């Protein structure tokens, strides 16, 4: 009951956030140079045609009035229609969103095992050879730009070796896995080092806690103390960082999806910005914001489930 009230409260708090996001994106799109109608009708249209279309889309109204109209439609669940594709924005999002979600979850699934294995390995032998090598590789992983790595991977695994397709999304689950492997891998390269550093230092902190001594004094042995006490206590700080990273992955999808031509939200977003497709950009941003809010909420709930001291 208490948890339910907490969730409800958090969702209520999300409303002003979403409102703020809509205002900012709306203002940004209005302030960006370039005329969507020009892009829409091409160079040869007469000024009369342009004026007609501008009027039809309400682009001549005062900006505030445009925003109010947009907000009113939004409340009715209408995200507007794409200027470019002439289909409802919601339909475009429904088409592209699952792809990005698949990519993000795929990246997470690929990321977690190495993160746990590497941080436990380096924490248990602090300053050992493995620890140093892992740290060094981590720095390299962080330093290499994602888009460049993505290009290299595409060239090497995709073209030279031909192991993986270098673009698209595929049609079945198995194909999805295959198509998105390289995008997920190139994203993972920079996510893993961040999480490893964080989890490793949390593990080292927790290994020096007093309760470790208690566990050893009970005769549990180092392995068991590590498994049952140290590890669960180390998860929390990393979990919070993880939430931030997931939000980042959503935004980061722009890069990998562009490089690998994955038909996801990131690609939709970039193309819509270039085409001045106002409503699509706004709708996509709102969906990104909402997803981020939900991820944060989920992580907070998970944290309270792990740590009884953080009651909602």
């Amino acid at each position, binding site marked *: 009951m208490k948890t339910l009230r907490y969730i409800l409260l958090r969702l209520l708090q999300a409303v002003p956030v979403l409102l703020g996001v809509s205002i900012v994106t709306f203002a940004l799109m209005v302030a960006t140079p370039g005329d969507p109608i020009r892009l829409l009708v091409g160079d040869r249209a007469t000024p009369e045609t342009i004026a007609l279309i501008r009027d039809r889309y309400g682009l001549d109204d005062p900006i505030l009035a445009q925003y109010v109209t947009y907000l009113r439609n939004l409340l009715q669940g209408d995200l507007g229609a794409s200027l470019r594709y002439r289909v409802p924005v919601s339909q475009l999002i429904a088409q592209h969103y699952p792809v990005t979600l698949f990519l993000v979850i795929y990246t997470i699934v690929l990321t977690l095992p190495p993160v746990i294995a590497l941080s436990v390995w380096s924490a248990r032998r602090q300053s050992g050879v493995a620890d140093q090598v892992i740290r060094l590789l981590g720095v390299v992983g962080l330093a290499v730009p994602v888009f460049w790595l993505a290009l290299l991977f595409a060239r090497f695994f995709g073209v030279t070796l031909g192991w993986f397709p270098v673009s698209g999304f595929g049609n079945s689950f198995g194909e999805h896995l295959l198509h998105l492997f390289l995008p997920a891998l190139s994203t993972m390269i920079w996510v893993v080092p961040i999480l490893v550093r964080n989890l490793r230092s949390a593990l080292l902190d927790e290994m020096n*806690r*007093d*309760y470790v001594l208690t566990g050893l*004094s*009970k*005769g*549990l042995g180092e392995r068991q103390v590590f498994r049952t*006490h140290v590890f669960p*206590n180390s998860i929390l700080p990393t979990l919070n960082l993880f939430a931030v990273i997931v939000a980042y992955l959503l935004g980061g999808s722009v890069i990998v999806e562009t490089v690998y031509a994955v038909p996801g939200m990131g690609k939709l977003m970039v193309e819509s910005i270039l085409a001045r497709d106002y409503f699509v950009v706004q709708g996509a941003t709102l969906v990104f914001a909402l997803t981020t809010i939900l991820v944060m909420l989920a992580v907070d709930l998970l944290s309270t489930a792990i*740590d009884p001291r953080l009651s909602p």
Partner: protein
Amino acid sequence: MSALLRVQGLSVRFGSTVAVDDVSFELERGAALGIVGESGSGKSVTCRALLRLLPRSARIDGRAAFEGRDLLALPEPELNRIRGKRIAMIFQTPASHLDPLMRIGDQVAETLRKHTEMRGRALREEVLRLLDVVRIPDPDRWARAYPHQLSGGMKQRAMIAGALACQPDLLLADEPTTALDATVQKSVLELLAQLRRERNLSMIFVSHDLGAVAQVCDDLLVMRRARLVESGPVRRVVAAPRHAYTAQLIASHPDRLEAAPPAALSGAPPLVEAKGVQVRYGSRTLADLIAGREGGFIAVEEADFSVSPGESLGIVGESGSGKSTLARALVGLVRPRKGTLVFDGAPADPAGPGRIALLREMQLVYQHPYEALSPRLTVHAAIAEPLRRHRLCPRGAVDERVRELMAQVDLAPELAARLPGQLSGGQCQRVAIARALAFDPRVLIADEVTSALDVTLQAQVLGLLSRLQRERGLTMIFISHDLSLIRRLCNSVIVMRRGRIVEAGATAAVFDAPREDYTRELIAAMPHLEGSAA
């Protein structure tokens, strides 16, 4: 009968530092041995070395034969069959020695799961029985609770329950009562003494408090600077110490300190007066506002008291009784929700505009000396800071004034360039006192200034405070959970419980004829050197 544990030539080194130097002792089955000494004397390290619970950097030499088997040479898996099963250990701060994410019942069960075949229902029932043995009320409920939901005393009991689970032969108790309130300490000590009697449990009890050791143990080891300086039966050592350090340790016990309350200026109008002070933490929520409630949590309720110039007032109470909050309200660190303060005949608002002027007259010294000093300011800079900030003396005279203040608190001049991390706890506390004195205040509020210090340092700091009081005519408000200190230092005393002042009056009157049961309980809980061994 052969000894249960025979330790010969135990030495522990951390790099080039010798933490324990050639310590030998024997423990008979069913006997209880106390190890006392100040912090850094190696008493805890000795205790932990027996179960090899030291960091890897420690080098342990010597022999510790437990029933003939050398604990220091056993391979790890075999040692793990002794740890927890034959030799169990309890620690100083139960709060940090329990896993915050695990239910109390599961932590007690851990030992049983490891060393016995007990599972499921039988295991659960055994855990409940153990919690009952250590006198945790309503075991069924508390077994399901998490450590942060338990009070300090209950946590320590839960830890004892976990240690007793496999009916060990030897219990190593590392300062098990130091972090606890007097009344809780008393009950834990009683529990340990009772377990000794009923289960024939052998015990090694490490503490810096001779009084606590005297209540549980029959034999005593005194350690200083990694070495054993004296050993023998508790009564003999207390009555006739052979080593000068032991004599000093005994003389420093609050029981033996000179009573030195200053003569109060009778008839003078009170210097500090509090009327109906109420402090609440937390704010009013919307629901409180609608229901017309005050909201929050009451830390201090309707406190009235007054201190005359030159007087020293003691405030006692357990942790959570609101005594520190009251002190904080006096210097404006928390804002009272209600009530007024009068300083020197004029109304004062310590949290308001006149704050700085008031703080020059009234200074607070904090409990934890290391935390009260910035780790990156040298002693000189720490003491000079208020002088510069408040322009308390001409710029050119600051150095001279700092030297003067350091001399007043018996700090050697060469310490001026040190950082707090390079000082002992007692030295840090002196720096904090010197910093407070820099204001040349009329009132000094000492908030548990000695509770983080060893007895010998505690005696020194108390001596310093009473000397300063005599020399400068300071008015003191002395907050402590230790009644024996209050009794020796203060003219009058306030007893607080759950935010209320339950009893107040002249020290002698309150101690000799307490009116409240709670005060009586507190007085009875004072550990004495002459306590009988169980």
